[in-house]
């Protein structure tokens, strides 16, 4: 964190004239989404963190509010041809195509792995048809360790399903209401930014009974290698993520927060604690760190520390005071 905040922490301590360990100086980082309480608002963005196994080597998973897993379907998906990733100015494009081992392996391997940690599990669910989603949601229904389901209706990189449900309000309404009939956990619809009016989508999800929203997924982009005169990504288009998309994400989180009453998991280009705080002020109840994990494998815990420092500096007792507090 910046020296400013370190100074701030000292100032707070002096003002209160109490030792740092005093509980009154420690802000309350707890947050609630759809009735599920998280010990802090820092989570991982689906697809950037696997099921935590790889980055568990860098960060203590116990410190995270939740791990949001890579999308899982009813059967294994092989994903797209390579190249699947390309760097762009201030960000990257990806078209992985939701490669995943399917729900069977996921239940046998990934869930038991995550259960070892004191963090909440949010499973990202993907499918090509409504029935695919239902199959996965039902399989997860009896797994009490799964706190929340994030429904991926916004991946721009798969040809059928997924995004088709996330770009038309009536289709989003239908899949949301259908999944509500089958899901035992609360469902959080992950919205696509690749729409004309994201509030229309948010309202459709809310009307259909969604418990929460997460946004934004990646923004469809393209890169051309001028030397080879070829697309940089085999899929031609890819989803853009990284710090360059943050202003778009902030704008959309704000618009959605104004349009609906549902809690929001905000994401899109978060690189620092300051970025995370912008999302809270715009209306997010929690945030996910995505592409920045690739740049700084310690980003999640550093952001968490920075949020705490900010709250101490500005004497914010509870995270709830920040949510939607922009004036």
């Amino acid at each position, binding site marked *: 964190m910046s020296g400013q905040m370190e100074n701030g922490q000292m100032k707070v301590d002096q003002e209160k004239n109490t030792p740092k360990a005093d509980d009154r100086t420690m802000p309350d980082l707890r947050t609630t989404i759809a009735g599920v309480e998280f010990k802090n608002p820092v989570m991982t963005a689906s*697809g*950037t*963190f*696997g099921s935590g196994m*790889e*980055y568990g*080597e*860098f960060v203590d998973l116990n410190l995270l509010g939740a791990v949001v897993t*890579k999308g899982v379907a009813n059967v*294994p*998906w*092989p*994903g797209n041809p*390579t*190249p*699947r*990733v*390309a*760097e762009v*100015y*201030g*960000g*990257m494009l*990806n078209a*992985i195509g939701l*490669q*995943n*081992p*399917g729900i069977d*392996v996921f239940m046998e391997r990934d869930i038991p792995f995550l259960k070892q940690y004191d963090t909440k599990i949010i499973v990202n669910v993907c499918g090509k048809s409504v029935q695919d989603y239902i199959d996965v949601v039902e399989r997860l229904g009896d797994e009490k360790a799964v706190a929340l389901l994030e429904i991926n209706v916004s991946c721009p990189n798969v040809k059928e399903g997924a995004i088709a449900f996330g770009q038309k309000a009536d289709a989003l309404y239908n899949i949301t209401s259908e999944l509500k009939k089958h899901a035992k956990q609360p469902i959080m619809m992950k919205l696509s930014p690749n729409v004309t009016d994201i509030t229309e989508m948010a309202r459709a999800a809310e009307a259909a009974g969604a418990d929460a929203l997460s946004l934004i997924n990646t923004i469809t982009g393209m890169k051309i290698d001028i030397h080879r005169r070829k697309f940089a990504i085999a899929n031609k288009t890819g989803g853009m993520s*990284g*710090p360059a998309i943050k202003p778009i994400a902030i704008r959309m989180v704000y618009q959605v927060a104004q349009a609906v009453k549902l809690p929001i998991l905000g994401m899109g280009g978060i690189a620092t604690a300051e970025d995370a705080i912008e999302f809270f002020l715009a209306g997010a109840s929690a945030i996910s760190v995505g*592409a920045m*994990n*690739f*740049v*700084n*494998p*310690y980003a999640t815990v550093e952001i968490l520390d920075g949020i705490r420092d900010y709250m101490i500096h500005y004497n914010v007792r509870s995270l709830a005071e920040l949510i939607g507090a922009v004036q």
Partner: protein
Amino acid sequence: MKQKVMAKVISQKEIAPSIFDMWLETDLAKEAKPGQFIGVFPKDKSTLLPRPISICEIREDRSALRIVYRIAGKGTGEFSTWCAGDEVFILGTLGNGYDLSTAAGKKVLLMGGGIGVPPMLELARELALQNTGATESDKCVIQSTMGYRDAQTFLKEDMEKYSTLYIASEDGSVGTKGNVMDAIRENSITADVIYACGPMPMLRAIKAYAAELGIPAYISLEEHMACGVGACLGCVVKTKNVDHHSHVNNARICTDGPVFEAGEVEI
């Protein structure tokens, strides 16, 4: 354990046009193995991702790693401007590396093409080191064939220290005119096991050659990467068998590789 750490540039020089030779001071050297790579981070914040660069030499005693890379774009362009004393961030050590035990008692052939030459140097050096303590029957015969575009035969002298070297150049200015396969034919080189790194057409030819002879070939693959640690699933290669991560015949080059037995991968 994989880490992102600060490293200090010890030295850097251009050893051929657009080919740079940099030594980095880092404790990652203690865990590094031949065939592994590191992610090197540009400082320019518009370029975010670590650049995967193969390890060319390891000096545990000096806590130093040597990388030899070609300027391929903005990131590596920035690396080439770094000077002794500069502090830089690296991620490592990454990938599986070559398994030296597969060389024991064998007549081995190291094959490098272009910017695939550098990782062959540490492999040759460690095989030679392995020979010094080994019984006669476990000693390996180290031969190498390196392919270049022209007379810019970077790392030639280093390779000659540890192996019997045969050179091929595309323009015929040094050694065999043609590629590493031409060098094998011209010099009637035989081997029990091949270790290779280079462009995909070369690796395909080696895979076919090794299959024909019925010998193992351990090839190091390259692909565009994002995380470098196995999380993003960006850098996959089709495999003959079901992979252990996604169960879809897609291995992750960054973690399951970059070294694969040629018969295992569909390239």
